[in-house]
Every structure is written in structure tokens, then in C-alpha cells.
């Protein structure tokens, strides 16, 4: 079990309490970073670890920190993206619920490396209990000198504030998250400028996913080399795979990056429920293009999945069996993105709604022969043309479902 970084101590009772966490070696990385390392050395170590963002896009975390200008007179901010909204994804919820101090420790080290004095945890509104747990953990950390002024007797100060979202998928998009955190409507911003230079309250801002930051203490404590060994050279560490759908043991599995999808489903998650036949897998949250049963011998890392035309995304593996109608999958995808489109830009606002109307009609038994082509055409008109990644997140799965399962979908047309 020593290959785990994040879920290693999940079995320990009361891990969410600071004392217990410390008993498992917690907060040693903060001690090391703040007392023995310069911010530049911390940044360097994280860069060496090839830690790629766990929110979905897979952007190298160290590089992201490095973009923050250090020579502007403005304050810098860290926003922890805990707005876990991607359908199928539930890893951050476990990480925060079981091990909130690990996230705080990563937050403290990241803030130290970038020179940040205020950090925000933007957590999805539905995670109320977890938000309370985080607040309790923050209070504990304050009492024990890990947060507040002069942390561990050094000159470093940091405050962490938990902010609950109001339940919009779009607020997981980093610039919409910033708008929402500023108290505005959660509409994505036009990029550039990127948040690293103009972010929260127009100040340089780092936005990292919960899982990304939770990896930091290990990198500092055990070194980049050890972290890299657990994963791949261009993609260090482990991933917390959230497996759901028709498997025997749905749940989260922390495994090295590059683990085969087949291994995840059939070994770790116990194989197909009731020995049903596998039909398809959505490998990285709902916005990842779907894979057929023949495509599951892929190593699960950012580059391999991108090569296969899908994406690792949030590493949420949704397993679909033969008895599940692909039309239901299509309907769920179309409905979700139509419902969650923020409405700001034309292709996403109208395109997702239009496709949803077609799919609803199709599901209602009133499909027409050119409907599938229409969905493909409209999704292609959304893809790559929207203001934020939500457009692609909607278009890619729709396209892949219609292309890979066209034959099955055509079976739902009335004349067939």
C-alpha cells in the first residue's frame, strides 16, 4: 500500500483531526518547507515532480506557480478549486472529508512558494458538511500555529477562507470561479489575461485543484524523485480514480498514473456488476469522450488518453454496461450541459439547448433520420468556438457518443 500518497491513511480513525493527522506524520512538510527551504526551492521541487493539475486540464502545477509575477505591488491569492462538479467525479470530496489537513498543508506550502498571504477554498455548495469540516480544520491549524501570523515562528503569514458556491457547474471553470468568489455572476472571463497575472480582485492568482495541492506535502517531504517514481516521467505521482457505474466495487482508487483502464475496472473495482458485459467507459468525467469496450487497454495518464482521442480529465471512470441504453447516456450528457451552460456565449448557450431538444425528441420516439447528423454538425459548431472550455466539454462527449454508437442510436429512430 505504500504506493499511495493521498489516501494512505484513510483508514486511520479521526484523521480529520489535527492531532491524529500529525500522528501520521502530518505537517512535517510545512515544517521542512518553511524552516529549511526557500520559496524558490519549493517551487523548484514541485516543478521537478511533474505534478500536473488534477482538476481536468492537466496543466503542470509548478509552471502555473512560476507564472505569477513576483514584482508587482499587488497582493497575490491562492484559490483552491473544490467546486467538484464534473459528473462522475467524487475524489475531492473524499480527500477533503477524510484528510482536510493534507489539503491545508499543501495550501500552506503552495502559498509559501508563491508568496501568498490569503488563500480561498471555493467549495461546491452541496458539500456543506465538508465545508464545516474544513473550517474546523482551519481553526485547529490556527490554534496550532500553522495558519495566521508568523507561522511556526517564521515570518510567513497566511489566512485561509472557505467560500461555498451556489451550485453551478460553470463555477468550477477557474475564471468563473473567480467571478463568483468576487460576488458576481459566475461567468467565465475572456483570456488573456490569465489569472496568474490578473485574477481574483484583479490580482495575480493561483488556482489549483484539491487533489493537486494535496500532493504537495509528499513532494516536499519525500522529494520530487520519489513522487516521479510513483507515476510517469511527464506525469508524476498517483491519481485518485473515482469509479462509478456498473462495477462490483464503485469507489475511489488511488493508483499510479499509467495504470491500465482494464486493470482499474476489472481488478480494483472488482469487474462488472452481475457479470454484465462492458459496453463503454467514460474515462475522465462526463466531458471526456467515450471509449468503447475495445479501447480499455489504455494506460490512464494525460498523454495516452489524449492520443486515444479522449482525456483523463478528473479521472472519474464511468462504466457503462451493455444493458444501458446509449440513448440514455446521450440524454444525460445533453441535458446536463444544456442545463449547466452559463448562457454567456452563443454556441454553447443555444447549441447545447438545441441538441438537448433534439435528443429529447429522439428519446420521445419522434426522431428523424437526420437527427444524429444534426447533433454531430451542431456539436462540431460548438467545439473550439466557445468562450470557455464548457463548450468543448459538451461537444466532445456528444460527438464521440454519436460517432461511436451511431448504429445503436439509429435503432431508436421510428422507421427503423
Amino acid at each position, binding site marked *: 500500500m505504500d504506493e499511495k500518497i493521498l489516501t494512505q491513511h484513510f483508514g486511520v480513525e479521526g484523521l480529520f483531526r489535527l492531532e491524529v493527522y500529525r500522528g501520521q506524520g502530518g505537517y512535517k512538510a510545512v515544517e521542512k518547507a518553511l524552516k529549511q527551504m526557500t520559496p524558490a526551492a519549493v517551487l523548484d521541487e514541485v516543478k521537478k515532480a511533474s505534478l500536473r493539475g488534477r482538476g481536468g486540464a492537466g496543466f503542470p502545477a509548478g509552471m502555473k506557480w512560476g507564472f505569477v509575477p513576483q514584482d508587482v505591488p499587488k497582493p497575490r491569492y491562492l484559490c483552491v478549486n473544490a467546486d467538484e462538479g464534473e459528473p462522475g467525479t467524487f475524489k475531492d470530496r473524499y480527500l477533503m472529508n477524510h484528510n482536510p489537513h493534507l489539503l491545508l498543508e499543501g495550501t500552506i506550502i503552495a502559498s509559501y512558494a508563491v508568496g501568498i498571504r490569503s488563500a480561498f477554498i471555493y467549495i461546491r455548495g452541496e458539500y456543506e458538511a465538508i465545508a464545516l469540516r474544513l473550517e474546523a480544520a482551519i481553526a485547529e491549524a490556527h490554534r496550532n500555529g500553522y495558519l495566521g501570523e508568523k507561522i511556526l515562528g517564521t515570518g510567513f503569514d497566511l489566512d485561509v477562507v472557505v467560500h461555498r458556491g451556489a451550485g*453551478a457547474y460553470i463555477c468550477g471553470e477557474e475564471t468563473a470561479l473567480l467571478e463568483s468568489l468576487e460576488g458576481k*455572476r459566475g*461567468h467565465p472571463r*475572456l483570456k488573456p489575461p490569465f489569472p496568474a497575472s490578473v485574477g481574483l480582485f484583479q490580482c495575480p492568482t493561483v488556482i489549483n485543484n484539491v487533489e493537486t495541492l494535496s500532493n504537495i506535502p509528499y513532494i516536499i517531504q519525500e522529494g520530487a524523485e520519489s513522487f516521479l517514481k510513483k507515476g510517469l516521467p511527464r506525469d508524476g505521482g498517483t491519481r485518485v480514480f473515482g469509479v462509478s457505474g456498473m462495477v462490483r466495487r464503485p469507489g475511489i482508487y488511488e493508483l499510479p498514473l499509467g495504470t491500465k483502464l482494464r486493470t482499474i475496472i476489472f481488478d480494483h473495482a472488482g469487474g462488472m456488476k452481475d457479470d454484465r458485459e462492458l459496453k463503454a467507459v467514460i474515462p475522465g468525467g462526463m466531458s471526456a469522450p467515450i471509449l468503447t469496450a475495445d479501447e480499455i487497454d489504455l494506460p490512464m495518464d494525460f498523454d495516452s488518453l489524449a492520443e486515444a482521442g479522449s482525456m483523463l480529465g478528473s479521472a472519474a471512470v464511468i462504466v457503462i454496461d451493455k444493458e444501458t441504453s446509449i440513448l440514455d447516456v446521450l440524454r444525460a450528457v445533453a441535458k446536463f450541459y*444544456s*442545463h*449547466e*451552460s*452559463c*448562457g*454567456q*456565449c*452563443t*454556441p454553447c*448557450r*443555444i*447549441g*447545447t*439547448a*438545441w441538441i438537448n*431538444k*433534439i435528443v429529447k*425528441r429522439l428519446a420521445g420516439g419522434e426522431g*428523424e433520420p437526420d437527427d444524429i447528423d*444534426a447533433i454531430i454538425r451542431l456539436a462540431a*459548431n460548438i467545439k*473550439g*468556438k*466557445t*468562450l470557455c472550455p464548457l463548450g468543448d466539454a459538451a461537444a466532445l462527449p456528444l460527438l464521440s457518443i454519436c460517432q461511436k454508437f451511431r448504429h445503436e442510436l439509429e435503432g431508436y429512430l421510428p422507421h427503423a
Partner: protein
Amino acid sequence: MPKIFIDDRGVEAAQGLTVLQAADSAGIAIPHFCYHPAFAPEGSCRMCLVEIEGLPKLELACSTIVREGLKVRTTSPKVVEARKGVLEFLLAEHPLDCPICDKAGECKLQDYFEEYGLFKSQFKEAKEKREKKFRLGRNLILDRERCILCTRCVRFLNEITKTEDAGILSRGIHSEVGIFESELIDNNYSGNLAQICPVGAITDSDFRFKTRVWFLESKKSVCPLCSRGCNITIDSHPGFPRIPRSRRVYRIRACQNPDINSHWICDHGRYGYAYLDEGRQDKLVWKRGGRETGLNWDKAVRILTEKVRSLVERGKGSRIGVVLNTNLTNEEIFLADRLFRKGLGIEKFFVADPPPEKGDGFLLTADRTANSRGLQEVGLTFHAPDLKALSELDLLFIFGHYLPTAINPADLRRALEKIETTALFASHKSALDGLVDFVVPVPVIAEKSGSLTNIDGRVQSFIAALDFGGDGVPEWRGLLDLAKELKVEHRYFWPLTSPEAVFRVLQEEVPFFK
């Protein structure tokens, strides 16, 4: 200046410009809905996507800043396809009510569809039903079915008036422009919202359903309703009066001038156009012993010249007075000065203007006439009309109908009754009409040519946007005719036959106007 290539054409673009602006300055139009030069780029309509060499995706022309060597394609198949895609999306939910939409004919959605679309609709689903006449403001009606959510209106209220009255409500396909319940948009610039709406979503109830835009003739002019000198477009019906209509002018719109009014005008200037067609003087009249005689200007000039001459010959030149106003053009004020003061030695000059009101701190000034700065720069001083001085006159020329606002009517009546001859040059009917001997109709600013000097000293020339229908003359013409008939400084006045010629002399003589 970075050099960029737009469709293989080299374009020198100023540093910091966007691709869209650089293209625009080179005469290459990139279609757009949400972009407006007065606001920060929004990037939400996705209509201005262009191909940029070396980049995998199409990029926004409205927000991409030019850099040396950038190669842009604005008409490649990929770009045209993307535009079609956006149009298809917008039209999927857009009602086809162009035949009853006021924007038809000047609607960007309609224009771009003509240019890039012309496809048959593939939309088989039911369109969303939305509010068709939501009252946004005093004169503003929002049709939420026509709205394409470009948010120009929201951004205008955030960035220009800073009143933040409107926002986007609801999400996704249900998104709509909304205001705070029961709080209508009420500011002096609300009329601009209907003008900047690229489609027929916000219409102006002042203009709604009155005419089709293609019947209107658009002419540029300068707004004379305060001293800002905002540039305007006057839209009038050229069929008037052949087609029986109660008025010529259907609307006033802001005309862009970055140095004065940017893209905006105030509601005072926009909606206050009734004066152009209402209450106008139209007959040149001579009143003697309670009897009115119709005259033509040639005859009137001879009679007035005779009066002046007989007074001057009898050594009573000092008993001639002139009342001016500051809605006269620079040229007219200059001519009045050169004829009456320099030419005839008249000392009694007065200025009667409408009283100042409150300015709004943005465009509308407290001074509600167009050219007080011009009067000052020509070198005249403001003397308020004084009763005693008036009653000592034998001949009074009154320009403008504002005297009753400066002096109370009873006193004015007594003073004017003592004057042997009074000649009024006025564009509008007023209480003065009954107190004077001659009434000469004159045009308003929109009906004449000349120049005005705004509050900041900016001189703007303009030409007539509307025909002058009355049987009088523009003041500059009247003054020149008087000068010529009187043979005052013959060689000076004789070559002056147009406002342009007068302005050239003004420039020579008054350094300010150089």
C-alpha cells in the same frame, strides 16, 4: 507600429489595437455583435472569430491584440463556416418577425444573414417563448425573443452611465436581460440603449412602429440643445410634405465623434426634436395698424434698409439696437458684429438666451444654447437686455424668440411699444410675435449651414440636414442682404456669399478660429 497581414494585405496597426480594430482601420469589416468600440471586449457572440496563422483554434478578432507579423484570415472557409454556425445558432431561437420589427433594415443579424447565411433553417424544435414587450425604461421596450444577449446594454449601463441598472438573469438558454423589479432604467442616456442594440431587442417607444427605416433620410448635424455640440444624425422622411405627415423628423441618433460625444447623446437631445417641426414661424409678416401684410424678403430688406438709413442720416444711429442670441452660428454672430457695430457704429447690443438649467455632469451642459462660446470668441460681450435702454430706441432688430424669458412680458410690451420699428428674426412662434412690426422666419441649426463653437472651444462646421421651408431667410443671408442693400463696407461684404466664405474671413480676423 506592428505590421500585420490581414488576408495577405499588409496593414500598419497602432500598438495595442485589436485585430478587429486594425482591420476596421484598413477598411476590412469583421462581423461582430457584442463588440462595441466604447467598451472592453466581451467575446461572447463569437461572430468575430478569425484564423490566425500558427494557432490551432479560431481566435477572437475583438480581443486579440496585434503583434508584429501576425497573419490573419478573415474570409477563409473555416472562418466563414464558423460565422455561419453562429448565425445558425442565433437564428434558431430568433423570431422571424422582421416584417414588424423596427430594426429591420439596420439590423446586424439581418445584414450578416444576407452576407454569410442564406441557409434554410434546420431547426425543427419549438422556439423558446419569451416576453415580447418588457418595459425596460421610459422609452425602452425589450423583446426578449429577439435578444441575442450581446450585453451591450448591460455594459453601457455599467461602463458609461455607471448606473448598473440591468444585468443578465437566469442561466443558459433561459438567460435574459433584466432590471431590478419595478425600477425602470431612468437616466438621461437611456435612449442610447436602443441605438446600440445590434438587433431589434431594445426598441424605442418614441420611434416604435412609426415608419420603416428605409424610408428615412439620414443627415449629419450638430445638436443645438446645449453647449456640448454633440454630433447627431437626423433621420427625416423625405416624402414630407408630399405624403401628408405631421412632421419631418422621426428620430435623432448619436453620431460618433470621439472628441466630443463618443458614441452617445443624451435623452434631452435625442427626444427633444419636436421643436424642429412644431411651433415654427412660416410667414414673413409686416404689421401696420393691426393689419398684417405678407411680404417677401427682398421687399422686407428694402423697407428695413430704409428705416436704418433714415435714422443714420438723421444722426439717430445711436437709437438702433440689436438683440442677439447664442443659437446663432459663429458666422452669423461675426456678421452681426461687423455690420451693426463696425459698419453702422451701433453700440446697443444685447444677448437674450433661454435661461440655463442643470447640467448632468456628462454631456448635457447647464448652458442650453449652442454657441455662447462662439459669441465670446468673436469678441462680443453679453449684455442682458435692459428695459430702459430698449425703450430709448427707434429701431430694434431682435434675433431669436428668447426675449420674453429675459424680461417679464408686461414690461417688455411697454418697452417695445415705444420703439418705432421692431424686426424679429425667429424660428419659432412666441409672445414676441404680437409685439413686433416685422416677423422674419429663420431656420433652426439643422436647417442651415455654418459653424458652432462648443463649450470646450471646439469649432464644428455643419451643413443643412433639413430643408428650410419658411419664407424667410437664414440669419447669415439676412445680415448679408442688409449689408449689401445698405452699401456698408461694400467691398468687404460683397464677396461674402456663403457661410464658408464668411468663416474664412472670420478665421483671418479672429485668431481663435484659425
